[in-house]
């Protein structure tokens, strides 16, 4: 193999990881499991009816990963390949469970109305139409940086419609880029952004409501 000055070291790390896995390195396998298991469960949940079914699909996917490890050619990323297996396992199980294969996020794309309640803006008969009449108040830094903020965000995420929650989690919790999310979920870049926007807007609104109602000092 020719090491190239232009090759990102991430590619080398991926190469080493694959080699370690193939050599049966348990630590490498556990690291992989810890890194992806939560996201796999989240993705699987989109296609099946129950939590238990999602867990089974993920277990099955890991077995599939092990079986295929020697055949994996490294043309796609290991991550992309693993998640494709999860989706396949979950879809098969979902069909069994009688849950229609979702949406490509589309059922969550129905018009939901504005990101911020219209009565917080001046109406068209007023001066400065469309500008804030009830503007957002800055959040105190000490609360934004507290564990309270994390708890609120976590709570808000759980209340989102599934496709929105999945997109926001993959993007913002797991740090995927938009291309990876689109490919995995089979949605367009534009739809991905709509889902992300709705999700983040709702989480912001939830945090605002909670921080406001609890009355900061």
């Amino acid at each position: 193999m020719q090491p190239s000055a232009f090759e990102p070291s991430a590619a080398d790390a991926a190469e080493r990881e694959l080699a370690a896995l193939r050599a049966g390195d348990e630590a490498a396998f556990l690291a992989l499991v810890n890194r992806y298991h939560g996201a796999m469960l989240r993705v699987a949940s989109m296609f099946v009816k129950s939590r238990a079914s999602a867990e089974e699909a993920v277990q099955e996917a890991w077995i599939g990963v092990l079986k295929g490890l020697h055949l994996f050619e490294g043309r796609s990323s290991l991550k992309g390949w693993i998640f494709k297996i999860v989706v396949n396992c979950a879809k098969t199980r979902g069909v069994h469970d009688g849950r229609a294969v979702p949406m490509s996020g589309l059922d969550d794309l129905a018009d939901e109305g504005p990101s911020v309640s219209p009565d917080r803006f001046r109406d068209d008969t007023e001066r400065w139409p469309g500008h804030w009449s009830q503007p957002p108040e800055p959040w105190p830094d000490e609360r934004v940086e507290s564990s309270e903020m994390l708890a609120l965000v976590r709570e808000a995420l759980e209340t989102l419609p599934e496709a929105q929650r999945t997109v926001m989690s993959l993007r913002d919790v797991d740090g995927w880029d938009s291309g990876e999310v689109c490919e995995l979920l089979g949605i367009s870049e534009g739809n991905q952004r709509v889902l992300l926007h709705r999700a983040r807007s709702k989480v912001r609104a939830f945090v605002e409501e909670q921080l406001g109602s609890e009355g900061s000092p």
Partner: protein
Amino acid sequence: MKLSVPDLSCRELVEIVTDYLEARLSVEDRTRFELHLGYCEWCRTYLRQMRQVRDATGELTEESLAPEAKNALLAAFRDWKRGSGGEKP
């Protein structure tokens, strides 16, 4: 002085804030967006909160694996290693 581009309202800004953060606005729309931010402290606050939400979400971690599930996977890995697995030297 008249601006060459129409002004953006706050109500419009909150709908394109994600496009802005994702760097998906056209040059013209980004200019309108930033011009608006220049005079509107409220929308600066709104944008800041969207970033704070995104960043706080980034500090969350996915649910960790239950010990039983982890043990089951490790057992599967060992089986695999004994069977087909473990690259031949």
